């Protein structure tokens, strides 16, 4: 089996991209699409098959190779969906109580961390992320420089991240 530039066997390296591929697929199709996890599995299987069959010759990086497969698979899925009757019900996603509880708990943790921020940080998060104003609009609103807006956003995220690690 060939290896990537770090000496990791290619199939292992490919499986290490599950989180990146999952993010891209969920973002393109929406997390509520019940079969997004299947699509991720199919992409990984397809990539490993291509490596085994020698179709991937290492001309590009593994990341670029997987990006191409992922993008094509997303387009195929969207095309296939156009054949589905518009009003036919989708199979409901099968909820995993463990995962759901974990996600909910983490979200509550983040919410508490945001509540503990100083008002000047909450204000900037509110305008920038919740109201989706541009950096310049937020700067005008709060009477500070656009650079200061970025600094406050970055610092607020840093504090939230720190709180999650604690």
């Amino acid at each position, binding site marked *: 089996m060939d290896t990537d530039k770090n000496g990791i066997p290619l199939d292992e390296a490919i499986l290490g991209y599950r989180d990146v591929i999952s993010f891209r697929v969920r973002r393109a199709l929406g997390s509520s699409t019940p079969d997004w996890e299947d699509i991720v599995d199919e992409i*990984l299987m397809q990539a490993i098959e291509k490596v085994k069959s020698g179709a991937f010759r290492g001309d590009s990086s593994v990341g670029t190779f997987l*990006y191409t497969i992922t993008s094509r698979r997303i387009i195929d899925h969207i095309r296939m969906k156009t054949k589905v009757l518009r009003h036919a019900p989708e199979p409901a996603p099968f909820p995993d109580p463990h995962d759901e509880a974990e996600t909910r708990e983490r979200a509550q943790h983040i919410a508490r961390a945001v509540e503990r921020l100083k008002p000047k940080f909450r204000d900037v998060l509110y305008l920038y992320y919740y109201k989706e104003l541009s950096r310049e609009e937020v700067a005008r609103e709060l009477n500070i420089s656009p650079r200061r807006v970025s600094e406050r956003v970055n610092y607020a995220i840093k504090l939230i991240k720190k709180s999650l690690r604690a």
Partner: protein
Amino acid sequence: MTNCRYEDLIDRYLLDKLKPEEQTDFEEHYFICRSCFSKMTERDEVIQVLKKERVLTAPELARLTVHTAGAPSDRPFAFFTPRRWAAVGVSVAAVLAAAWFIIPRTGTAPPPLVLSGDETVRGAAVMALAPTGDIAEVPALLEWQKVGDDIEYKVTLAGKVPLMGASTRETRLVLPDDVRARMKAGEKYFWQVQAFKADGTLVATSGRIRFRVLPRS
């Protein structure tokens, strides 16, 4: 610490503010840049919470009146305050109510839904029987209920990584020894069955059935 030049695009990507070509460029980039991907997922998680949990709609923020001083707004609904939205809602409801009484309800019935050959109906369910939930040992086979005659079932099984994909016309699938050998106690696995007609049309699918092989005590 060196900052990647793409980092500035993270927020705009997550807020859907990038141009299509910038978006494609950035998506390709985060497949090869772990640093950007890691920062993006962190921010995405926070943004999701800020949007869904409404943690920032606390009363003290009501003092912030969002406007773009002097400049015409690029936000198409910025004109509408909550009171104006309410007025719009009441007006629309009144128009709909009037239309309901005025428009005669004697039109012809809509045509029945007819499937063409290459359309796919989804929503019917395959009832998966076993394994499901917590089980004592690595399962020997997967079983589900029959959907109909002349049906081919496509079965997928995965844990943290895909384990197998197979097709069968039976309503059970014996797991190969090499697949069973890769399954470990304490790990979660899931499987799914899709039923296809002879012409390849998907006619039914099961949910994502999860199970866990309990660790030996």
